[in-house]
C-alpha cells in the first residue's frame, strides 16, 4: 500500500481490529435488536466512529473498502475517506456533506444494531427527527477540545423531544486533550447542568477516541481513571427490554383478514401491530369507537397460533363475537382505554419548505387512522437554540418546532406521546402536494 493511503482511517494497523466475530446459530436466533441514532457534523469524528464500529464488527466488506478507496484516490484525496462508505448519494459524495439519514447495519454475537446516521446541522433537523423517531438510543458526540456547544444542546433536546429512552454522550478526541480526566469531568458537568432541564432518564458518558479506538470497542489503556464500559460493550448490554410498554394494551386495526373460500369461511381476523401492552387469548377487549365488547378467541401470525402478543408484534386477532370492526378502529381493555377526542394539544416539528399556517386544513395519519384536521392555534414556537418560547410566532417554517392545537374531523384514540410513542404520534400531510409536512407528538387534550 502506498504511504499516502496510510491514513487515520486505515484500521489495518490495529492488531485488535476486525478479528472476527464468532456467531453460533443458536446465539444468532436469540439476539435482540437495538436501533440507535448518531448525530453530529463532519468534524465530530462521527464517520470515523461509525467506520470503526462497522469495521471492528466486520460489517465493511473488502469490495466496499476498495470502492471507497479508489473513489477517494480518483477524486485526488491523499487518504481514503471513510465518509465515502457512509455517504451514499452522489450529491453528498461530490459536496462532501451528509444530507439525509443513512441506515447502517451491524451485528455482534450479542445484538443486532441498526444505526440511523443523521446529519448534524440545524438545517437537517427534520432528518434527525426522522431518524430519532424509531431509535431506542442516541449517541451524541462531543469534541473534547470544544466541549458542550450549541449543537450538543440541540441534539440533546431533540433526543428528549422524541423520547429516545437511552442517551450515550461520547466525549471524543480524548487523544487530542492528553486523555485529561479534568477535561472530561468538566464536559460531563456542563452537560448534566443543561440536560437537567430535559426529560432524559438514562445518560451514559464515555471518554473515547474513535481515531485510536480507545473505549470504542476495546477498553482504553490511556485512561485508567475511567472505569466504565467501552461504547460497544455498553451498546451490547444496555437494557432495552424494559422500553416496551407491557401495561396498556393498544391494538390499532390495520387490515381485516377474511378468506373467500369454504375452508376458512368462519375466519375473520383483525390484522395489526401491537402498539403497547400484552394481549392474551381469553382477554376481554373493547373495540373503539363502537364500544362493543368481546373476548379474544385466537391470536395468530399467518395461521400459527400464539398464546399472547406483545409490542411490536404483527398479528391477527379473532374475537368471540361478530362485531363490526374495520381499519382505523382500536382494540384495548375495557378498564384501560386511550383518550378519545378531537381536540388535541401537540408538539410539532415542521418538515416542509411551505410554512405551517394557522387555520389551514391538513390530513393526518395516526396509527392506522386517517383524518382531516384544522390547525386551530400555534401556542408558541420553541427557539431550538435557546429553548425560549416565542409566543408571538405566526407560522412554523422548515425545521421549526412549536406547540399547536388541532381539531380533527373524527375522534382519534390516542395516548400522550410520553406514555406511548405509537399511539401518541401522528404525521401531517399536505393535501395539495401529498407530502409529509409535519411530525407531531401528542401532549393531551387541549385545555
Amino acid at each position, binding site marked *: 500500500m502506498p504511504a499516502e493511503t496510510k491514513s487515520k482511517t486505515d484500521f489495518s494497523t490495529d492488531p485488535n481490529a476486525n478479528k472476527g466475530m464468532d456467531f453460533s446459530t443458536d446465539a444468532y436466533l436469540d439476539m435482540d435488536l437495538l436501533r440507535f441514532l448518531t448525530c453530529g457534523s463532519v468534524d465530530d469524528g462521527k464517520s470515523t466512529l461509525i467506520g470503526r464500529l462497522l469495521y471492528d464488527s466486520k460489517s465493511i466488506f473488502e469490495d466496499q473498502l476498495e470502492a471507497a478507496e479508489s473513489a477517494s484516490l480518483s477524486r485526488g484525496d491523499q487518504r481514503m475517506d471513510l465518509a465515502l462508505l457512509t*455517504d451514499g448519494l452522489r450529491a453528498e459524495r461530490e459536496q462532501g456533506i451528509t444530507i439525509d439519514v443513512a441506515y447502517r447495519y451491524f451485528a455482534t454475537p450479542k445484538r443486532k444494531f441498526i444505526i440511523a446516521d443523521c446529519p448534524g446541522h440545524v438545517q437537517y433537523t427534520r432528518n434527525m427527527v426522522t431518524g430519532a423517531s424509531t431509535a431506542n438510543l442516541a449517541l451524541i458526540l462531543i469534541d473534547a477540545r470544544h466541549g458542550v456547544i450549541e449543537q450538543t444542546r440541540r441534539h440533546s433536546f431533540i433526543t428528549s423531544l422524541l423520547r429516545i429512552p437511552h442517551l450515550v454522550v461520547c466525549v471524543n478526541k480524548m487523544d487530542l486533550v492528553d486523555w485529561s480526566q479534568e477535561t472530561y469531568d468538566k464536559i460531563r458537568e456542563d452537560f448534566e447542568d443543561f440536560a437537567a432541564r430535559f426529560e432524559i432518564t438514562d445518560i451514559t458518558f464515555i471518554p473515547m477516541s474513535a481515531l485510536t479506538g480507545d473505549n470504542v470497542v476495546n477498553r482504553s489503556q490511556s485512561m485508567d481513571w475511567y472505569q466504565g464500559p467501552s461504547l460497544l460493550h455498553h451498546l451490547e448490554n444496555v437494557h432495552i427490554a424494559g422500553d416496551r410498554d407491557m401495561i396498556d394494551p393498544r391494538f390499532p386495526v390495520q387490515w381485516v383478514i377474511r378468506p373467500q373460500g369454504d375452508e376458512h369461511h368462519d375466519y375473520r381476523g383483525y390484522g395489526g401491530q401491537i402498539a403497547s401492552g400484552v394481549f392474551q387469548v381469553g382477554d376481554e377487549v373493547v373495540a373503539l369507537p363502537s364500544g362493543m365488547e368481546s373476548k379474544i378467541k385466537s391470536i395468530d401470525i399467518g395461521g400459527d397460533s400464539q398464546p399472547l402478543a406483545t409490542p411490536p408484534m404483527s398479528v391477527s386477532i379473532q374475537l368471540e363475537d361478530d362485531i363490526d370492526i374495520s381499519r382505523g378502529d382500536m382494540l384495548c381493555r375495557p378498564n384501560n382505554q386511550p383518550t378519545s377526542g378531537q381536540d388535541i394539544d401537540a408538539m410539532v416539528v415542521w418538515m416542509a419548505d411551505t410554512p405551517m399556517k394557522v387555520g389551514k386544513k391538513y390530513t393526518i*395519519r395516526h396509527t392506522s387512522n386517517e383524518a382531516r384536521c384544522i390547525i386551530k392555534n400555534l401556542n408558541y414556537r420553541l427557539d431550538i437554540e435557546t429553548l425560549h418560547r416565542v409566543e408571538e410566532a405566526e407560522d412554523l417554517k422548515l425545521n421549526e418546532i412549536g406547540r399547536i392545537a388541532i381539531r380533527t374531523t373524527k375522534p382519534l384514540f390516542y395516548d400522550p406521546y410520553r406514555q406511548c410513542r405509537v399511539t401518541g404520534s401522528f404525521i401531517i400531510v399536505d393535501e395539495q402536494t401529498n407530502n*409529509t409536512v409535519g411530525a407531531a407528538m401528542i401532549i393531551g387534550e387541549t385545555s
Partner: protein
Amino acid sequence: MTSATESSGAQSHYKLTHLKALEAEAIHIMREVAAQFEKPALMFSGGKDSIVMVRLAEKAFRPAKFPFPLLHIDTGHNFPEALDFRDKLVENIGERLIVHKVQDLIDRGEATEDPGPFPSRNRAQIPTLLDAIEKYQFDALFGGARRDEEKARAKERIFSFRDDFGQWDPKNQRPELWNLYNGRHRMGENIRVFPISNWTEMDVWQYIMLEQIEIPDLYFSHKRDVVERRGQLVPIGDAPFGPREGETIVNRTVRFRTVGDMSCTAATDSPAANLEEIVAEVAAARASERGARMDDKTNEAAMEDRKKEGYF
C-alpha cells in the same frame, strides 16, 4: 438446526428476537400497502429475497389469499433452475403470477440490449417494468431490496415514490417517521415498497433457516462449469452464455450468493451445502453480496443512476 429450533421454542413469549422484530415490521408494511393502495403487486424474481417476501406475505394475509399478484420481470436470461423453482412455488402457494417479458419489448423495439462485449439485459428491465405498470395499472410494487446491499439504497425510504416515468428523486424523499407510512399519491404515480429494507444478508439467511423456507439449489454448493472473467467466476450455459474467445471452462465447486441474470451473476467458490454452512460462510465473508453483481461495478454511482431511471 434441531438445537436452534428447540432453543427458540423454549424462549419466553415476552422476548422479542431481532428476526421477530424485523418480521413484524415487514408484515406491518405489507398490510399498510394493501390498505392504502388499489393495485399493488409483489415483484418476484425467484431469488432468496423475493422468496422471503412471499413468506412474509403469507404471515400478513393467511388464511386469506394475497390481496395482490406476483409479478416477474422475465429477462430471458434466467437460470433454468430459478424458473422451475418459481413455477413450483407459485403452484404451492396458489397465488396469481404475472410474467412480463423483456424479450417482448425488444421484439417491439421498445427496449434494447446493452451493446458491447458483456451483453446484459439489466437496463432493458426498466422499460419492461414500466410497461407492466402501465398495462396492469399497478400503483405499488413490493421489492425485496435491502439497505445493506448498496450505498444508494441505504438512504432510500421504505415507501419510495416514483413519478410518471418511474424515476426516483433522492433529494425529494418524503420524511418517514415512526411506523407511519404516507402512501398518498396522484393518478399515474406509483411507489416501490421495500418491506425488508432493514434486513441484512445475514438476517435473510437466518430467517430462511428459522422458517425452513425452501430456496433454489443454486444457493447451495454444487459442481458447475464456469470461466474466470474479470476476476469473477462466470457461469457457463447455452448460448449466449457460452465461453468467450480465450476463456477456458473449468468445473468448480461453487454456489451463488445472489441469483440474478446468468449474464451478470457470478458464482463464488464454496463448499457450503446447507443453511448452517451458508450462515457460517456469510458470517466470515470478506466480500459483499452485490460484489458478485457485475452490473453495479460500472461506476461508483451505478445503482443510484439506475434507480433514478426507474430501476428497483
